[in-house]
């Protein structure tokens, strides 16, 4: 059966081709069926694979040599193991739901564009599957770039609008900055290990000493790639802009799947990272910083999608914190739960926007609870989940990360908890301003307010259920559970777990205390937020420090000032001065010199015999002197 793994990415590709080539001829419904159908089938296959792997045989399926250069052989191979199937399920599952959702959400689009949308979406799923299935870093990189491309295409889906396309460029280019590091890391890997296959590399890396310079370098460079892809400091600014794309796209790409590619990559190469504690420290700090920093920004955003975007960034920060402190399972766990509730949040937001006729400013909403019951309830579930209130999923995953952070370094934990409080606060600020209070929109908006169609609500409901219960696959031992996910993934992380066995186990009492503090403070924050914003939301422009937050700490402006402008100026200088008058000037100068020489030299030919003979005599004289006295 696992020979059939190639079908998993292939089907979306086929969907892409059919929808892309036949976009003129296909009817919308047909497009929708193809678009969703292929994903559904690959979801089913992934399920089968999952159970196979659970039954306990994971394997590497090789198809053909992609690159063979001297001793460097890179096959086109897929790896089916615990980690990849988990991601397979997330991608295809959530992906399928989002596809279904999109069929309704994108319905106003004309046929061709509709098909274009679905083909891009399928292409994205294809590349994402490639990313997680690849059995070596090159295939991963192919998927890595592929998802980047799709996000570029989908952000700029409404290509008429220059801001949107600009956002697409920004996303792609920032990802390129990440790829810069990633590629460099790959080359270093090749130089170090002579291969890119996971299995060979990890087996070779096993017997390298801790903090080997090469390993630190490689892991850091790979991490740069992850920073770009998963929108961490300093390369996170593209993600909020990426909200320009259609909301389901934001749900799928910029919340559930693509942005977690970095997490996947580090989890995949966990051994290398555990061998390079220095890098681990960097990862943890970056993650923590991102988590808190993004959370602060999210406090003051008024665009519903922007809030969610920054919360995504911050949640990703948590995942990296988890990775940084060695809680790989926790990170993957959080990826899963986050995929559910964040997708749910985005889809809910989408449903709201749909209902409000593309109004995204929460200050113009309010009191939608009655009008959009399904959306409201599902949204609430998601908010509770992300806020980390037991027993919903977010609690378990976040708690696992925080616990690990605590055992690594108390400061991590403190900051992490503060971040969690902020999360709870801004999420419920959003919830309250959107759904509670009374409606603040215009009249025809109010007149048209209605619950979204079934195709949109059902995915919400399913995701809500998942967001609610998915936490129970990872109930920690303290709460009498035995963490199925950890057992399932243990083969992947076995190597690194062996290395960090000295990881001192923290007492149960402490754990209870930690959970209590986290959950309690979160609840307090929620209550404060709800009470504060359900009655009188802050409609006026933020002042003072709030303004700074609202303008995202002016980071974009900063980057513009230190990177973009100088570079532009410099290349302008090169183009105008160095190229034109410098290099080309020299070349033309030679020509002009020859011409000038011709004009001057011919004056020697002054037409007077006397002068000619004189010059001949002088020349003879010179020859004499050279011949006789030199």
């Amino acid at each position, binding site marked *: 059966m696992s020979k059939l793994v190639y079908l998993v990415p292939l089907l979306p590709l086929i969907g892409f081709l059919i929808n892309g080539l036949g976009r003129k001829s296909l009817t919308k419904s047909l497009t929708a069926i193809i678009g969703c159908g292929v994903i559904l089938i690959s979801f089913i296959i992934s399920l089968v694979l999952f159970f196979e792997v659970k039954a306990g045989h994971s394997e590497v399926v090789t198809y053909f040599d992609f690159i063979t250069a001297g001793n460097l052989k890179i096959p086109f191979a897929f790896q089916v193991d615990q980690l990849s199937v988990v991601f397979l399920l997330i991608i295809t599952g959530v992906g399928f739901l989002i596809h279904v959702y999109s069929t309704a959400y994108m319905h106003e689009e004309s046929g061709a564009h509709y098909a274009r949308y679905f083909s891009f979406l399928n292409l994205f799923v294809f590349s994402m599957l490639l990313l997680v299935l690849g059995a070596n870093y090159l295939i991963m990189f192919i998927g890595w770039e592929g998802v980047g491309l799709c996000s570029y295409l989908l952000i700029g889906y409404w290509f008429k609008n220059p801001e949107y396309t600009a956002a697409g460029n920004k996303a792609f280019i920032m990802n390129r900055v990440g790829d810069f590091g990633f590629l460099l890391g790959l080359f270093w890997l090749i130089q170090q290990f002579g291969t890119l296959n996971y299995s060979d590399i990890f087996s070779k890396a096993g017997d390298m000493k801790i903090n080997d310079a090469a390993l630190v370098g490689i892991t850091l460079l790979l991490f740069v790639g992850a920073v770009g892809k998963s929108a961490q400091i300093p390369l996170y600014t593209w993600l909020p802009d990426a909200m320009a794309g259609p909301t389901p796209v934001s749900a799928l790409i910029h919340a559930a799947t693509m942005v977690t590619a970095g997490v996947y990559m580090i989890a995949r190469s966990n051994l290398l990272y555990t061998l390079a504690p220095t890098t681990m420290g960097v990862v943890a700090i970056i993650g923590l910083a991102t988590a808190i920093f993004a959370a602060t920004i999210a406090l003051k955003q008024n665009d519903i999608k922007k809030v969610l975007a920054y919360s995504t960034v911050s949640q990703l920060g948590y995942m990296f914190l988890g990775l940084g402190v060695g809680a790989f399972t926790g990170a993957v766990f959080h990826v899963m739960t986050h995929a559910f509730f964040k997708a749910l949040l985005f889809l809910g937001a989408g449903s709201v926007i749909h209902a409000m006729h593309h109004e995204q400013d929460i200050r113009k909403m309010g009191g939608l609870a009655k009008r959009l019951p399904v959306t409201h309830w599902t949204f609430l579930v998601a908010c509770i989940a992300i806020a980390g209130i037991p027993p919903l999923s977010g609690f378990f995953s976040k708690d696992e990360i925080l616990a690990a952070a605590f055992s690594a370094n108390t400061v991590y934990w403190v900051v992490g908890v503060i971040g969690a409080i902020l999360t709870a606060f801004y999420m419920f600020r959003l919830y309250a301003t959107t759904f509670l209070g009374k409606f603040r929109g215009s009249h025809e908006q109010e007149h048209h307010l209605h619950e979204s169609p079934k195709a949109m609500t059902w995915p919400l409901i399913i995701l809500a259920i998942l967001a609610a219960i998915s936490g129970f696959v990872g109930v920690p031992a303290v709460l009498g559970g035995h963490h199925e996910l950890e057992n399932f993934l243990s083969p992947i992380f076995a190597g690194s777990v062996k290395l960090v066995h000295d990881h001192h186990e923290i007492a149960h009492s402490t754990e209870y205390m930690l959970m209590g503090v986290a959950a309690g403070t979160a609840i307090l924050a929620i209550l404060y937020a709800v009470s504060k914003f359900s009655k009188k939301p802050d409609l006026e422009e933020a002042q003072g420090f709030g303004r700074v937050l609202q303008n995202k700490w002016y980071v974009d402006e900063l980057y513009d000032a230190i990177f973009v402008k100088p570079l532009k100026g410099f290349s302008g200088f090169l183009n105008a001065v160095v190229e034109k008058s410098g290099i080309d000037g020299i070349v033309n100068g030679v020509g002009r010199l020859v011409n000038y020489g011709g004009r001057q030299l*011919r*004056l020697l*030919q*002054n*037409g*007077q*015999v*006397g002068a000619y*003979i*004189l010059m001949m*005599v002088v020349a003879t004289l010179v020859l004499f002197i050279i011949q006789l006295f030199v």
Partner: protein
Amino acid sequence: MTINHYIFLSVALFCIGIIGVLTRRNMIIIFMCIELMLNATNLLLVAFSKMHYLAASVADAATTAGTDGQLFVFFIMVVAAAEVSVGLAIIVMMFRNTHSIDVNFLNRLKH
């Protein structure tokens, strides 16, 4: 007399000719100076021929060494005569067209 007397004499004569060519603008004079140069060479040739003759006649009295030098002079005179005839013809033609014998009068051809 030793040969260097003759060498210096004719070289001097030769250079006088050159100086004449360089300093005068009257083309006839210039031409005459060229003749002067030729005569310098002739003189030196004869001197050399006698020198070689002397050197050779020590070995055998009936040598004809050096004869060729004098014959060369003869040929030079021949050529000179021919040149003069042509040259004067050209000069006359010039004078006919432009009533001047100034070499610098003609410099349409330049640069």
